[in-house]
């Protein structure tokens, strides 16, 4: 039976690889993750070149309308020539302290940026984007892959060849899960390639942070990112099967993703008891699991990893089960469009 399902998954790939849509979605995913690498790199370069500048005064205090720009690095080396000649010694001392703090802060910020475009931190950063960008793209891919069979009326043509209903849907779901994993692997490869380039461009004297993520951290982040996609795959498959429409699958899948965040953010402010309920909501757990940002961040304690793991598993099983149940029971009629 499993061999048959895998064969059906392979046949799904035979069809899907001929469509433009999955390739477009992959390009979009790569663009976003590459943007994270190159965006961080260029931000690092810009900040590094401006690092250590402090503006003192303003409003013409030192005879210059925009204030006086001080080179903190020079000041800390003992070269006080950039300080205005009329500067009180006390203020000069304060400027030195400010320079110290500023450089420390900027070093930290640069360190964070450095992690985003060098290996292996860049991969962790790319994986942080997956629960949002990857999820949106997976919702579109899932709804399209399942829904077009209704829209084009091909589901009837397929089912009368006798593949079995649940096996056919299982083939699709397995392919989508594998493709999402493959897409993450491609993202890892592309991010690694870009990171090697950016790493060589910044050179060995770059301001690296004291602690860098390990490859083990990166592996865990990648697996967690993939796991966080599965409940949305199940949700979208269920909605698409229940409505028989790609458009509904995409609309409801995305509306839930954004809607839950907004509703949770509002209700957490209004009702204390909602804290407990929020611990069992899908997107709240996805965010906690993936370590991403949430509109409701800081308003309630995020669930633990173990809690989130089981909640996401429960959503995947229940929503996936409903998708299979509907798919097996519903009458299959002609083309529906959309």
């Amino acid at each position: 039976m499993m061999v048959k399902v895998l064969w059906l998954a392979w046949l799904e790939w035979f069809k899907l690889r001929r469509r433009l849509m999955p390739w477009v979605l992959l390009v979009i995913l790569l663009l976003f993750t590459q943007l994270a690498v190159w965006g961080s790199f260029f931000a690092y370069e810009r900040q590094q070149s401006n690092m250590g500048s402090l503006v003192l005064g303003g409003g013409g205090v030192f005879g210059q309308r925009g204030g006086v720009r001080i080179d903190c690095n020079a000041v800390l080396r003992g070269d006080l020539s950039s300080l205005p000649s009329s500067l009180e010694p006390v203020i000069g001392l304060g400027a030195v302290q400010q320079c110290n703090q500023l450089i420390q802060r900027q070093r930290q910020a640069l360190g964070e940026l450095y992690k985003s475009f060098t290996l292996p931190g860049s991969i962790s950063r790319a994986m942080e984007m997956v629960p949002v960008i990857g999820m949106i793209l997976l919702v579109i891919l899932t709804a399209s892959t399942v829904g077009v069979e209704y829209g084009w009326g091909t589901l009837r043509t397929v089912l009368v060849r006798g593949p079995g209903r649940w096996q056919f849907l299982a083939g699709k779901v397995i392919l989508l899960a594998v493709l999402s994993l493959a897409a993450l692997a491609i993202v890892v490869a592309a991010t690694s390639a870009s990171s090697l380039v950016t790493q060589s461009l910044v050179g060995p004297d770059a301001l690296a942070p004291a602690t860098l993520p390990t490859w083990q951290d990166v592996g865990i982040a990648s697996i967690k990112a993939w796991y966080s996609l599965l409940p949305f795959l199940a949700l979208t498959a269920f909605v698409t099967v229940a409505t028989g429409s790609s458009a509904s699958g995409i609309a409801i899948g995305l509306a839930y993703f954004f809607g839950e965040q907004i509703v949770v953010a509002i209700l957490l402010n209004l009702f204390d008891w909602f804290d407990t309920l929020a611990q069992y909501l899908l997107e709240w757990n996805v965010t906690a699991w993936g370590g991403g940002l949430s509109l409701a961040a800081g308003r309630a304690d995020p669930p633990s990893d173990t809690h989130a793991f089981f909640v996401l598993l429960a959503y995947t099983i229940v929503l996936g089960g409903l998708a299979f149940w509907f798919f097996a029971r519903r009458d299959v009629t002609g083309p529906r469009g959309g």
Partner: protein
Amino acid sequence: MTDLVIETQELTKRYGAIAAVDRLSLQVPRGGVFGLLGPNGSGKSTTIGMLLGLVRPTSGRFRLFGQDVTSAPEASLKRIGAVVETPAFYPYMSGRANLRYFQALHGRGRPDEIDRLLDLVDLSGRANSKFSTYSLGMKQRLGIAYVLLGDPELVFLDEPTNGLDPAGMAEVRDLIRTLAADGRTVLLSSHLLHEVEQVCASVAILFRGRLIAQGRVKDLLSRQGGALRLRTTDDRQASTILAILPWVLGVEPQGEYLRVSAPLDRAWEITAALADKGVYLIEMVHEHVSLEAYFMEVTGETSAMPVGTHQ
């Protein structure tokens, strides 16, 4: 006992209060072309959908190839090729790629089968064009090629000549006859009465979800009686002579003819009875009852259809 490939018992499909198919008991014998005849909305496609596992019956049972598969018809689908209503394929794939996919899905058939089928339906020249660029007629022909993948024993064709020009329709009818001649059973669903009459040996007539009649076309039409039109040397006396024969159902003058309702195979007895009494035939014509006229009569439809005649 007749070998039946399809047998339904009180098969019913209801959508709320509406019975799309109402207690249908159908028997389709093995071999030949069986027509499922009825106007649009009579329940033909729903019936086919139930037999193929696409639509869940509300009640009733059915057997395919002698096995009760009401709850799991998928088991029999390996032996069946079917197109339900308009053939639907993946628009971004070529006709050939579509057939390759469905052949692989079915798990039967040799690689050269696809070329042979494309040749058979005259689509070889456009085999590598995307399905979305096909005309309706080409889509229908690809549908027939798809149905024949894996050399099925039982073929369901649902309105296969929709969208075809007259020459295309004739080709498809010839193809259907060929399929049946190869020993297959073809279930042809159509609302075109003349089409069914031309290619089907047996029919079932559905009307508003109910089975009105089924059997061999010849038997149904002869059961309907038919009529003979006579011109004799003395029509008045002929009327009297024939009216007393027990197997003559009616005699009525119709213009310069006498219309005698009687079985065609007893026509010779009419000539003998008349000659016995010294009345001789000038002309005898068999009034052929077409399936169309028969359909109108059994369904109670009021539109007057011309009754064809042949000698």
